[in-house]
């Protein structure tokens, strides 16, 4: 049973796209006025017609964010466990055909990484791997999570899609959140970018949040990789995805990510240049999500610049990574494995926290208890 994915599959991408590109300034103004907004309003807010209204959108997004989240920002850090990958994705530095040094951290190495991360102040951790079922699979995840839960209260994962049963096992082991980004919601474009490996299975990936909801995961993350395809249409699908998930799996919380393509080794920039999302458009998109879902966590990585991230709370961002190293082992020593992508904001977590405080935003390092397991 995958009711949410079924409803997403029933959408007509081209019709949705036409609908959003035909939105007018009047539609945008109406969307701004409404106390509660619909997906139609969201379309207006991400349409080109809304570009002159970004300042107004930001003012409203700021108000809604303060009301629900207050003057706070959750901070977490990614821990890259492995860059092994059995997929071929044209945009990613981990792709199997890239001739880079591959590594998977051993438990001892993970302990060193955990100690280095604890020293930075974090209590919320995001585990990231490439997708390699046999070498970086359930056995490895369970062993790693069992150890890391002794060190961190909140553990999130960004790994290959797994079965409901595996998610239940990981949930039992202490995983609190899983992020699986669809990259693009358009089947034919998805096929163009994913050339080999299990990731070619569009449906298995699209159905992942259904399985996570059924496994009663506390938090589920969705996103489109901005820049792969028309970001506006992909974002409407993302927004709809969250709405449907909230209806079906009401015990879970949702987080929307805003990864946008940045240069990395082996990527074909030519395939993405037409869909580039500008920084101003990214602000528009973040605000549009906040105006549609006042209660959803919106998250930003260190892919974005220092200046952008320092202002992000005012657009609606409520959590961010900081001090990230995107290469396995990067916190405790400098290994030669290659990074998934280059970070842009390279400040230390402490510097990021201080910049937030200077903007009147309190960093939140802890927001969970070990004993919360449901």
């Amino acid at each position, binding site marked *: 049973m995958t009711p949410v994915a079924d409803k997403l599959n029933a959408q007509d991408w081209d019709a949705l796209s036409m609908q959003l590109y035909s939105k007018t300034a009047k539609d945008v103004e109406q969307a701004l006025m409404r106390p509660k907004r619909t997906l139609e309003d969201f379309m207006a807010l991400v349409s080109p017609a809304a570009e002159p209204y970004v300042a107004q959108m930001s003012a409203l997004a700021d108000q809604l964010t303060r009301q629900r*989240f207050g*003057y706070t920002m959750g901070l977490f850090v990614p821990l890259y466990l492995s860059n092994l990958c059995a997929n071929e994705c044209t945009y990613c530095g981990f792709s199997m055909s890239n001739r880079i040094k591959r590594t998977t951290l051993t438990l001892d190495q993970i302990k060193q990484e955990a100690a280095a991360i604890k020293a930075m102040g974090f209590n919320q951790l995001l585990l990231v791997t490439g997708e390699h079922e046999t070498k970086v699979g359930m056995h490895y995840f369970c062993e790693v999570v069992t150890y890391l839960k002794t060190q961190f209260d909140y553990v999130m994962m960004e790994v290959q899609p797994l079965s409901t049963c595996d998610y239940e096992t990981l949930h039992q082991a202490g995983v609190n959140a899983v992020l699986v980004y669809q990259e693009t919601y358009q089947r034919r474009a998805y096929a163009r970018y994913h050339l080999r490996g299990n990731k070619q299975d569009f449906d298995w990936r699209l159905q992942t949040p259904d399985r996570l909801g059924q496994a009663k995961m506390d938090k589920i993350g969705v996103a489109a990789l901005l820049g792969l395809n028309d970001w506006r249409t992909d974002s409407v699908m993302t927004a709809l995805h969250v709405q449907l998930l*909230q209806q079906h799996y*009401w*015990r879970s*919380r949702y987080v929307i990510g805003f990864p946008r393509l940045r240069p990395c080794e082996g990527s074909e920039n030519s395939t993405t240049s037409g869909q580039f999302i500008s920084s101003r458009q990214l602000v528009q998109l973040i605000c549009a999500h906040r105006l549609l879902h006042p209660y959803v966590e919106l998250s930003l990585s260190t892919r974005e610049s220092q200046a952008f991230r320092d202002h992000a709370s005012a657009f609606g961002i409520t959590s961010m990574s900081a001090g990230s190293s995107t290469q396995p082992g990067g916190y405790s020593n400098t290994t030669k494995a290659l990074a998934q992508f280059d970070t842009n904001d390279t400040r230390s977590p402490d510097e990021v926290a201080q910049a937030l405080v200077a903007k*009147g935003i*309190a960093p939140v390092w802890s*927001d969970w208890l*070990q004993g919360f397991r449901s």
Partner: protein
Amino acid sequence: MLNIAETQFSSRLFTGTGKFANTHIMQQAIGASRSQMVTLAMKRVEHHDELKKIKDNTVEALRALDVQLLPNTSGAKTAEEAVYAAHLSQELLGTPWVKLEIHPDTRYLLPDPIETLKAATQLVAEGFVVLPYCHADPVLCKRLEEAGCAAVMPLAAPIGSNRGLLTREFLQIIIEQAHIPVVVDAGIGKPSEATAIMEMGADAVLINSAIASASNPCAMAGAFAQAVETGRIAYESGLGRIHFNALPTSPADTFLEQL
């Protein structure tokens, strides 16, 4: 004076610690509110699990204010998790007081009445002073009272919504029937709304978002302090009845007096 579990409170305004931009503003605002009971989420308290020690600025700031700490179980989705959080708070903060919050609904953070009653029953049996956050459901409030809760904390509107007394009619029934203090929690956005519910006879109100998300939290805290005091004085002074028609002197008054 308000009396909960044999503790006296001269202020009927309870406050919280969430959503403030920093500990200093929080401390100033709570000071300005004159509140003597402050709730804080255990999930936000930074502590060493192994050492069972707290290293948390918020807790230190509250201890400096000399207020009754009311740890809450926010984040718990089940009775079991809430009981866990209560045990942790007793261990780390050394208080049996707990505000029971169980909200599996992640959007509106509405409390789960079934899990709340279950957890309240267990925690009361263990000797906790339990103040459950609950729906403005008069029957549920009676059940929580029977379970031995020290007070009930029915909601005025969804948490953080600032929408005011949406549940007014039911709060009225709860106040009328309760033999334990009724602390109206969640959703009150304006001082005038706090006055209104205090005039209706609520024993106290808990205000967090309306203070913490104000442009000037300190000034807003002061405004709420006055509003709550005003409402209480009005309630104790006996409000005049509301009439929908003028009440003229009866033409038969003189005759009636002779009877």
